[in-house]
């Protein structure tokens, strides 16, 4: 493969922002025909800057651009990038839900079909669109509305649109081109992800892809080569067809330090079997889950594993008090809890709920300090008269910021100015301080980079050591094998099997 001429080759790319921050430092990458190339790195490592240079959002300060072996200038806007064979599919907000598929495909290119008779133009567009959908193996009709399509199909249509824009720019179907996929799987569930990657594998026959992702196993499974960026420099390059790379290797290259070692994980596996903190008996929520029974011990972590729609997310929400249940009984610390209870009551009983969607957890227009103290109000009130002790509040926030290595200018900085990973750390940090007896985790590390993820896992393991009982629901199998002592497999809302952590590792390894 490497004997061919690269479709796109970038040499010695350097980009500096504001004269101080060096976002990219002498980075060279090449994309060959018919391959999927992964680009990974922490937030701030320079991935986005590199992709934006390729997509023509802004030119670099220095470097060279070769298209099919020919030296060219850097694109100054997305249309010029398309002329040089590059299109980008952004992480979100690319789809316009109110349009029909063919309208969306040709969005921005309508003038090419502007005939005197409107009907003629539309028929021609539809025929071309139909041919495209067939060629790209997308199962939908050109008349479908975008909002009616499943998320994975929407993503596929977006990719088709990117390729189409390249073809229209070049006037032929056989142009070598590169499509950049920026975190394409972020809005998708496990099955949809699988579907999307199967599609990309097929599409490799005509197009090359760059996959930007935080999800290590996706990168290792579906790419041919991987570039690793750290602090604006290219630190590693793996050819996956030639060498065996593990997630741990990749993690080390990205972050520059070890991932949490196995021994650290097994240290926390010591569960007190005598003290039961939560019991569920035949919990049923019609339409979501049926006959769920389990016992949660102090310091134990139970994971509910299954595809989307298996009821795992509804179960954890019912325990948090966000949803109710119709039948069965729930005991928290030996006392029966009514299904009508709200999160406030459950928290008073020692059940905290944390989900990775920070917009549900944080108050973005607030300073970091206040976001941490809001769930810990009781502990910062003065003893004699219940007013807030601002000194204690500051100390608490400072402690959490330090412990979780939250990168913020100060504890007074507004939350919305921070990066996703740091927001997530604040979210976890406030529960760390609150120290509930039972912690419910739903997708705790969704959408954040591996470095931040590691810090959050460490905090969760420490909480487990403090004998906090945990229930986990996630899309990442790795998370289960790291945190859970027991994994309950769900299918269609019913328990399929219960595995120990060891058995689970064997299952996902195969």
């Amino acid at each position, binding site marked *: 493969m490497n004997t061919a001429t690269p479709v796109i080759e970038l040499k010695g790319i350097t980009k500096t922002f504001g004269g101080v921050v060096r976002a990219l430092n002498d980075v060279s990458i090449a994309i060959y025909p018919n391959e999927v190339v992964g680009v990974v790195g922490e937030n701030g490592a320079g991935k986005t800057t590199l992709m934006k240079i390729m997509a023509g959002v802004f030119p670099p300060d220095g470097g060279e651009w070769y298209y099919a072996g020919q030296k060219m200038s850097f694109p100054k806007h997305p249309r010029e990038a398309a002329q040089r064979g590059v299109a980008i599919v952004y992480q979100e907000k690319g789809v316009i839900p109110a349009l029909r598929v063919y309208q969306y495909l040709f969005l921005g290119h309508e003038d090419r079909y502007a005939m005197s008779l409107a009907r003629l133009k539309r028929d021609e567009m539809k025929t071309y669109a139909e041919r495209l959908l067939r060629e790209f193996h997308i199962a939908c009709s050109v008349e479908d509305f975008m909002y009616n399509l499943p998320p994975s199909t929407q993503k596929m249509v977006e990719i088709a649109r990117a390729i189409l824009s390249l073809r229209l720019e070049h006037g032929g179907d056989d142009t070598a081109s590169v499509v950049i996929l920026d975190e394409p799987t972020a809005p998708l569930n496990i099955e949809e992800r699988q579907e999307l990657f199967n599609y990309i594998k097929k599409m490799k026959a005509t197009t090359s892809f760059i996959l930007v992702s935080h999800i290590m196993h996706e990168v290792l499974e579906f790419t041919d080569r991987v570039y690793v960026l750290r602090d604006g420099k290219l630190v590693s390059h793996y050819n996956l067809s030639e060498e065996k790379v593990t997630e741990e290797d990749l993690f080390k290259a990205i972050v520059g330090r070890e991932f949490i070692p196995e021994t650290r994980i097994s240290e926390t596996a010591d569960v007190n079997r005598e003290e039961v903190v939560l019991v569920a008996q035949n919990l049923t929520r019609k339409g979501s889950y049926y006959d769920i029974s389990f016992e949660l011990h102090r310091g134990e972590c139970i994971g509910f594993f299954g595809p989307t729609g298996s009821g795992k997310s509804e179960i954890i929400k019912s325990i948090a008090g966000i949803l109710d249940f119709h039948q069965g009984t729930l005991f928290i610390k030996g006392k029966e809890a009514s299904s009508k209870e709200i999160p*406030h009551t459950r928290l008073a009983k020692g059940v905290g709920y944390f989900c990775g969607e920070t917009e549900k*957890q944080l108050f973005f227009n*607030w300073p970091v300090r206040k976001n941490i*103290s*809001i769930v810990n109000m009781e502990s910062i009130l003065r003893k004699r008269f219940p*007013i807030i002790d601002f000194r204690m509040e500051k100390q608490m926030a400072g402690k959490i910021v330090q412990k979780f290595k939250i990168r913020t200018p100060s504890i007074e900085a*507004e939350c919305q100015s921070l990066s996703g990973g740091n927001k997530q750390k604040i979210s976890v940090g*406030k529960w760390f301080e609150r120290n509930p007896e039972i912690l419910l985790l739903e997708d705790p590390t969704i959408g954040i980079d591996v470095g931040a993820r590691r810090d959050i896992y460490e905090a969760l393991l420490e909480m487990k050591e403090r004998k906090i009982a945990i229930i986990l629901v996630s899309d990442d199998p790795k998370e289960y094998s790291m945190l859970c002592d027991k994994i309950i497999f769900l299918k269609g809302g019913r328990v399929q099997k219960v595995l120990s952590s060891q058995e689970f590792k064997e299952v996902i390894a195969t």
Partner: protein
Amino acid sequence: MRNASDRSLPKGSIGAKIRKIDPTILMLIVLVIVFSAIFPDRFLTPLNFSSILGQFVTIIVFALGPSMVATIGSMDLSYVGIWMLGGILVWRLIPVVGAPAILVYPLLGLATGFLIGVIQVKVKMPSFILTLSLLVAYSGLTAILSGGYPRIVRGYDFLAARLIPYVPTTLFWSIPLIIVAIFLMKNTKLGAYLYAIGSNEEGARLAGINVEKYKILTFTISGLLTGFGSIVQFKHLGGSVPIALNLNNMTLPLVAIVFGGTLLSGGSGGPDRTVLGTLAFVTLYRGLFITLLPPEILQLVVGLLLVLAIVASSRGLKGVSIT
């Protein structure tokens, strides 16, 4: 909060210093300077000063409660209703129970606030419509109970007995209310929870805050503050009990809240901002008043200013003064 244009200014320049001043205070200073310069003989007089303080009291006693409600993203327009109905009840009860009849105001405020809170939480109807409907109902009830004439309640003169020349005594009665409202919002758990609810209701619920309970509590406290405020108001305006709705009584407290930079969508501002907003608005209003503009034009100006203030505050003052 600082945007790009702030950063571009060199540190220590006059422009940068001015930008650091709170916009409402800046407006207040500018207004005082402008009006003093244009009308030195009419604006800078003890009489005008007295009028400003007087109108400050009129507005602030009704704006305090609703500005707490505004922080949770709701609206409370019931204040005029509590004041009118309470007044007529006091007038009816004085012959029966004597001086303690004045306590009808806070009791009515408390009950009204609680009622609004419960309905709002249980039926989930917009608080604006709910409180407006209640206001109309109260004014109807007032008209029935009054027998159709405005009434004068006598007694309680100590409330308004002049202590210091040119300073309305009622101002001193409004100060404890102001302090209580600000203290509740800034230094207690309640205040933190209200900002949380206004900023992100879902987030507040997940943080384990009993959102329903605190919403009811907010409306109840707002009603109670308005109830005590009505005592001040009623003597401040000479003991008269109106029986017809006056548009100004209703809108001016709202204008003051918005002038202070409190977003009506919730999550920011509060009573401290409203005190500043009221001062700035009253200064402006008096300034326009002494220009001898016809009242219709004044009304027009106030309405347009309200729109402007809402636009400005929704752009520039997000997140101001969250402790």
